[in-house]
């Protein structure tokens, strides 16, 4: 598993107060992991902080699963010249 995926899971676990080992790439943030509205916003904010990037609000909040988040963040890091 990539480093990005590990870091995404770690942040997700911290924000949603879950065990990182229980989080899988196919999990949806809301339906599987129970993220509420404010937590979705917190997740985006924490991803930005973790990776040192800025994400488009609407696009970031449209991401539904952990795997999609990994892909999306990897793409944004590349666009913004952040090495991961």
């Amino acid at each position, binding site marked *: 598993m990539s480093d990005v995926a590990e870091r995404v899971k770690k942040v997700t676990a911290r924000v949603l107060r879950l065990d990182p080992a229980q989080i899988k790439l196919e999990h949806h943030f809301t339906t599987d992991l129970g993220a509420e*509205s*404010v937590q979705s*916003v*917190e997740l985006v904010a924490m991803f930005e902080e973790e990776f040192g990037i800025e994400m488009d*609000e609407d696009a970031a909040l449209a991401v539904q699963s952990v795997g999609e988040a990994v892909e999306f963040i990897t793409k944004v890091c590349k666009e913004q010249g952040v090495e991961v």
Partner: protein
Amino acid sequence: MSQEKFPLVDRTEPNLLEEIFDYSLPPKIRFDGPVVEYIDGKPVEFDPQALRTRDIFITDTTFRDGQQARPPYTVEQMVHIYDLLAKLGGPNGVIRQTEFFLYTTNDRRTLDRCRELGHRYPECTGWIRADKGDFRLVREAGLKETGILTSCSDYHIFHKLKFKNRRECLEAYCAIVDAAFEAGVRPRCHLEDITRADIDGFVLPYCERLMRMSEQVPEELSVKIRLCDTMGFGVSYPGAELPRSVPKLIYKLNREVGVPSHRLEWHGHNDFHKVHTNAVTAWLYGCDALNSTLFGFGERTGNPPLEGAIIEYISLKGDLCGIQTQVITELADYMRSIGLPIPDNYPFVGRAFNVTRAGIHAGGLRQDERIYNIFDTTALLGRPPRVSITDKTGADGVALWVNEYFGLKGAERINKIKVHKIARWVNDQYELHGRMTSISDEELEAKVKEYLPEYWEKYKGKAAS
């Protein structure tokens, strides 16, 4: 394949119907044909489009009916309110007249002080009992017009005024009107309780007599008729029967008795939540004057709200016509400051009239305020749409509040990701601490300072220091 009856008109650009919903004005009320009302079994047409060109206007009774519902205003308060009414109605006299009691020294001093301001509109008129001696007060005050009580239902004629019969009542009223003519004062006969009166048996004969009497005097003295829906029984629905039908009452007096539109006035009460619509219906069917009070404050449930009539006037005319709408907010602030209670959800001026608590509405407002704001309330009322923060508001609402607070526009606006700590704090207030009230502006200001110090410093730091 069968053809669809209602084929989709597909578009890639939105059709916002801006010919009606021009955001810079209250939305236009447009008509696309005549209104037909069956009266005495025959269809009668009314032309609502004539409202755009007819000289309809608003009259005010804040100082008379409005004052019957509260402790008296001071002279200073009334003079200030009068001054603001003049500013609101503008130079075209959209607020054409206001009426004053004349009985006490304070009443007369107020009237003098208001006239000393030199405003052409609202014209000052009087209000007296149906007592011949009272015309001396009107004359001494130098007023050209006064309202006089001439109640017209049998509830009043027999049970209140104790007349022996209708003839005696009619003759007594006509004698008062004659006294007004003799005093050189235009009488405005207030037909109290008209929506509970015998229209054919008393109202029409009485008004016909008034019109005949008016033929004997110069036009400026001719009788005006105020239709007083004293108990709020009037209804606007087509097909409703007399005496409750507003359309039929107006029609009978206007077209059958021949009272000209500019001498007809509707005065309503809100006992059945119909006060504003009934008043505008009177406009629609041929009565030019809509009598109202500021914020609808009047006897019992109140009168047509003046500010509602102002907004309706603009909607019907499609133009501001010289009206200064921001004065509505100024008047509300002033009335609150002197103790008039205005409910938070009251249209146009309540503290929460354009404040949303719902996160989904806050989200819409954040994208385009037109989605959840009735018109450009910032420009027209000095009241930008706002959000009241509760557990239902979410990060969208917090972001909207913060942007309004800092006055940020366009690309400067802060997205909801940046306010996540404040949104979390708000959520915890309810989820962890069981809070039951909304978050105050002061609390939010403190949190903005704590969690967004760079924005605080940039936009508030200098002003605060």
